[in-house]
């Protein structure tokens, strides 16, 4: 992909006020501005503190189980007859997705700030589970906001959160999905800002969240880079990851931004198809605007009202996207495509049958696109796919579609 920006400069973003080119920034209620300043200052200090780094690394190693493997999916690669597909196994992390990398980091900050209460928003429930998990471990009160529609389709994760001691609040407003959960969590934070740490689950929200969450997730890309070099003797030719808010994708992409020859492909949720308007693909079909604290691509109508999204996967069902992706798109450093519900479901089944790995429906979007890309590449090329989570949570959704009651 040709790009006119200096890649080192691109990698050094955001600027001091949280901007990635024209995107990002801090569009928040005045009541939260002080807390965001405080968080940004603490985060910058801690991220440079060797002791904090050591504690973060220790937790990632012994609690999360990192490094996660990079697995050569030989049988799938052979079937497709093109590039060698390597899977970054974030599904093998404790709690079953990449989300925990971030909640470990933010929980450490909450502990340093002495906040007794954490809140989170969740779509698929993976971030809610990861937040409830770290809260249980640190003895913090945890409240998770979840759209009422998602509470229904991710019942397993709702029960997991309850077992972990969290309170799950179904959100009835708006479209009853992830964006409304985020609104409600923000409202809680404005009200309880003195004693509460808000653990945002993706690279969205006001500065410093998009940067902070990215930094915590970059362990994915750093490991993948080393593992790929060790296993194949070279860097991957292309990276593929699904994009909801964009945290697993940016975690994989960011350490490779400076490697101009590594293609980066983000996969949005195409829902019933981009042409139907029923999807969750703001980078493919939206336009820039301001929501949830930052400027980025949004799904909105002509009058700037946010419109309803659709995806079979709750974790991708979001009308916005992290601001860094918006800038990676505009600069041409990364490409963004969409995969429809049906294609994702096919990929879910295929990876399960061919490799014995059941991906989350979110991750299945990335797999589906890799299935399209690989045959157009040569067998000596490497296609590295982020398998952001495992599919246990989606078994009910898939069974429903199959007409089976489990």
């Amino acid at each position, binding site marked *: 992909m040709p790009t006119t920006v200096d890649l080192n400069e691109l990698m050094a973003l955001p600027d001091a006020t949280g901007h990635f080119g024209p995107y990002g920034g*801090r*569009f928040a*209620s*005045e009541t939260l*501005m*002080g807390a965001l300043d405080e968080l940004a200052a603490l985060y910058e200090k801690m991220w440079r503190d060797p002791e904090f780094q050591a504690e973060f690394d220790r937790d990632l190693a012994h609690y999360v189980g990192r490094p996660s493997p990079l697995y050569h999916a030989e049988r799938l690669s052979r079937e497709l007859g093109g590039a060698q597909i390597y899977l970054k196994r974030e599904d093998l992390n404790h709690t079953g997705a990449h989300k925990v990398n971030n909640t470990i980091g933010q929980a450490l900050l909450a502990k340093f700030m002495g906040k007794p209460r954490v809140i989170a928003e969740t779509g698929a429930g993976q971030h809610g589970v990861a937040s409830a998990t770290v809260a249980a471990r640190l003895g913090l009160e945890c409240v998770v906001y979840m759209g009422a529609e998602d509470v229904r389709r991710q019942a397993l994760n709702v029960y997991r959160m309850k077992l972990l001691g969290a309170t799950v609040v179904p959100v009835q*407003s708006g479209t009853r999905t992830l964006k409304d959960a985020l609104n409600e969590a*923000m*409202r809680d934070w404005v009200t309880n800002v003195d004693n509460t740490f808000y653990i945002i689950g993706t690279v969205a929200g006001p500065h410093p969240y998009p940067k902070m969450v990215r930094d915590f997730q970059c362990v994915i890309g750093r490991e993948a880079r080393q593992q790929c070099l060790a296993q194949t003797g070279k860097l991957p030719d292309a990276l593929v990851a699904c994009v909801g808010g964009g945290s697993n994708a940016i975690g994989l992409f960011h350490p490779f931004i400076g490697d101009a020859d590594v293609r980066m492909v983000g996969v949005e949720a195409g829902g019933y198809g981009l042409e139907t308007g029923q999807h969750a693909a703001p980078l493919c079909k939206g336009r820039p605007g301001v929501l949830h604290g930052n400027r980025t691509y949004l799904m909105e109508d002509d009058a700037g009202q*946010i419109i309803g999204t659709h995806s079979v996967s709750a974790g991708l069902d979001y009308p916005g996207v992290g601001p860094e992706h918006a800038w990676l798109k505009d600069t041409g450093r990364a490409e963004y495509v969409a995969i429809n519900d049906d294609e994702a479901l096919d990929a879910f089944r295929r990876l399960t049958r061919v490799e014995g790995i059941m991906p989350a429906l979110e991750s299945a979007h990335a797999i589906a696109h890799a299935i399209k890309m690989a045959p157009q590449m040569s067998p000596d090329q490497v296609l590295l796919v982020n398998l952001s989570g495992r599919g246990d949570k989606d078994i009910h959704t898939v069974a429903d579609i199959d007409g089976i009651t489990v």
Partner: protein
Amino acid sequence: MSRIQSCFEKLKVSGRKALIPYVTAGDPVQEVTVDLMHALADSGADIIELGVPFSDPMADGPVIQLACERALRAGTRLLDVLAMVAEFRQRNTDTPVVLMGYLNPVEAIGYRTFMEKAREAGVDGVLTVDLPPEEADEFCAALRDNGLDAIFLLAPTTSDARMKQICERGSGYVYYVSVKGVTGSAALNVDEVESRVTAIRSMTNLPVGVGFGIKDRASAAAVSRVSDGVIVGSVLVNKIAELADHPERIAPEVAAIVADLRAGMDDA
């Protein structure tokens, strides 16, 4: 002198405080809003804050969230709100109107285009709750070029240094959010409000309006004693919600609440 400025000047001369009701435009249907604005002005409102409905009202409690949903269902968009203001101006050229809402609908139209249309319609000021002054350079320039006031929020959590900066950026009046929370939250503490308003006054000559948590005649009276203006929203919007099926009763019954608040403030 802007319409907002001269409004506060006149109040000062007569020794009264500004009563600033908030209603969401187009709630529950677009037809009620202009009549309601006139009724508010006739029953003692000095400035009208007209809410622009948004799909994701993050800073609002359930009462105004539902108002936004009703107004959006009735098809109300930002340009419709401007049309309501223009219609209001045909019979009222005195009462300042401030649009209150979120940034994205303005982004969608474009700052310059929007501000020009707002000026033509007769809008006096704009308050966007998710636009802090740090991000507002272009926005404020476009406001200024069209003679519109930039109303900013100050919160209980705003540091003194920040308050000073915000007051320098704002014009018309500053809006002190009296409680940590969303609109319609728990009752405010008048002593705390008084000490914050005193601090704000030491930094700016702009009038200080106080909103969030003012529920009745008593709290309106108490806040009017320690500030320059009282902003009341959820109580009125709640009444509108109650009367959603009887739109003809909305203007008179909401006006009655405003008249009661006015009386309380004037006795204070």
